[in-house]
């Protein structure tokens, strides 16, 4: 009997030891696995702004950094990258570009056409004239350009001054002086590609232009203050904002900003209550980015509603007196009166 009791105790000890080992093993495995899936953050500077990417799973930091360095070089209007080379080339000389740049330009030209030129990627000569290019913007000016200079520069500030050859991946300028600028779509385009690199799960912030998967709380910057004008919890969405409050200067008390309209003047220059900020939501960050610029130019109009609907997007257009809504924006405006 004593032997049997002792055997029973031994079995109990074995059971307890086995249980403890099982718990420790499983906990160790769980801890290791959770370490592998921990959220990673990679950030840096590109495209004249910043980027910050949060994701989990396989480490693709190097891929993200390499891609952003690539587009930072090739999307820049000045320098030795693809668009810089196009801008520096004489008329009639085909300039070979990379597949990424060509894909960007195809989308750029499409949206430009759909928007009736409100989104104008060929406005770089005007951008230089108004002192908003990366190399001549200092945030101040004593006067605005002469009307004659604006009219003359307008003649070459059109996508019609370029031809694309998809087979050869070349871009040819049709007049000297014409120049492209991907500044109004580059961050969104990059955000979409980075979102693919991280497997479509995570948060990509390309200078305030977003692609997100899981629900996140997001705010729209107040264009005339340090607080926020709208908020939302968004998921599986792209969000982009354009506005007149980052690159601007004042001349005789009037705000001169960097988004230039087809008439050659800053968007809303002749309006009594111009749009000062536009936030577009949709499925593609590139499209949202381009549309936010186009709507800064068109303001609230049947054309802007048609363009937004065509790309299945939604938009909020803020003026200094209130806001307009196109479609059913996920953002709830917390400051300002609805004007439509």
């Amino acid at each position, binding site marked *: *009997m004593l032997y*049997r*009791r002792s*055997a*029973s105790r031994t*079995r*109990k000890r*074995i*059971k307890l030891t*086995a*249980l403890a080992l*099982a*718990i420790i093993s*499983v*906990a160790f495995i*769980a*801890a290791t696995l*959770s370490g592998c899936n921990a959220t990673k953050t990679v*950030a*840096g*500077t590109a495209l*004249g*702004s*910043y980027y*910050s990417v949060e994701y989990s799973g396989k480490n693709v930091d190097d891929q993200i*950094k390499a891609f*952003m360095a690539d587009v930072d070089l090739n999307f820049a209007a000045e320098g030795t990258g693809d668009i810089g080379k196009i801008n520096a080339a004489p008329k009639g000389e085909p300039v070979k570009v990379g597949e990424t740049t060509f894909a960007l330009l195809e989308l750029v030209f499409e949206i430009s056409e759909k928007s009736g030129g409100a989104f104008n990627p060929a406005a770089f000569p005007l951008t230089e004239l108004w002192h908003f290019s*990366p190399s001549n*913007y*200092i*945030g101040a000016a004593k006067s605005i350009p002469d009307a004659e200079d604006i009219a003359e520069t307008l003649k070459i500030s059109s996508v019609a001054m370029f031809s694309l050859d998809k087979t050869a991946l070349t871009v040819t300028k049709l007049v000297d002086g014409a120049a492209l600028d991907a500044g109004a779509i580059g961050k969104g385009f990059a955000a979409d590609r980075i979102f693919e690199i991280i497997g479509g799960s995570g*948060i990509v*912030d390309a*200078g*305030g*232009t*977003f692609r*997100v998967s899981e629900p*996140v*709380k*997001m*705010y*729209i*910057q107040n264009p005339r203050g*340090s607080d*926020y004008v709208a908020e939302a919890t968004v998921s599986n969405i792209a*969000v*982009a*904002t*354009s*506005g007149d*409050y*980052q*690159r601007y200067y004042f001349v005789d008390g009037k705000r001169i900003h960097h988004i230039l309209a087809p008439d050659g003047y800053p968007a809303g220059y002749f309006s009594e209550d111009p749009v000062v*900020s536009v*936030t577009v939501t949709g499925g593609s960050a590139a499209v949202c980015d381009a549309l936010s610029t186009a709507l800064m130019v068109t303001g609230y109009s049947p054309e802007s509603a048609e363009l937004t609907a065509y790309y299945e997007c939604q938009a909020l257009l803020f003026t200094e007196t209130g806001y307009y809504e196109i479609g059913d924006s996920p953002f709830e405006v917390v400051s300002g009166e609805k004007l439509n």
Partner: protein
Amino acid sequence: MKLFREKNLIEHYRRSPLFGIGDFIVVLAVIFACTLAAKSLVGSDTGIYADVYVKGEIVMSVPLNTDALYAVPDTRASIEVADGKIAVVDNDCTNKICIKTGFVSRSGAAIVCAPNGITVIVRGGDSEYVTGVH
């Protein structure tokens, strides 16, 4: 009688499987509790702070709960933390967009100096994000 009961008990232990369903429930409960405890430790709120990047590399993280003036390494920029907010207060860039941005405080807010490759991003807290022009 007592001897008979003890004998039955011993036989019961001898015939019972080494791990029963009850054992597995206990194991699962312990693992669940451990996971929750670990998650709460890892995910605990570390407060609002700002990561400062220079040319894509993080050079410093500064808490926003302590007022201070910092020199950004390898640049001529200075950042200031005051009243839970952060700003670039001095820089040798051409357009001063970073300084014009002023003080920011909400998680997700950012200050950018493109010419010098400096980015300040507020993080922590409830992980909020801000769409705007940068």
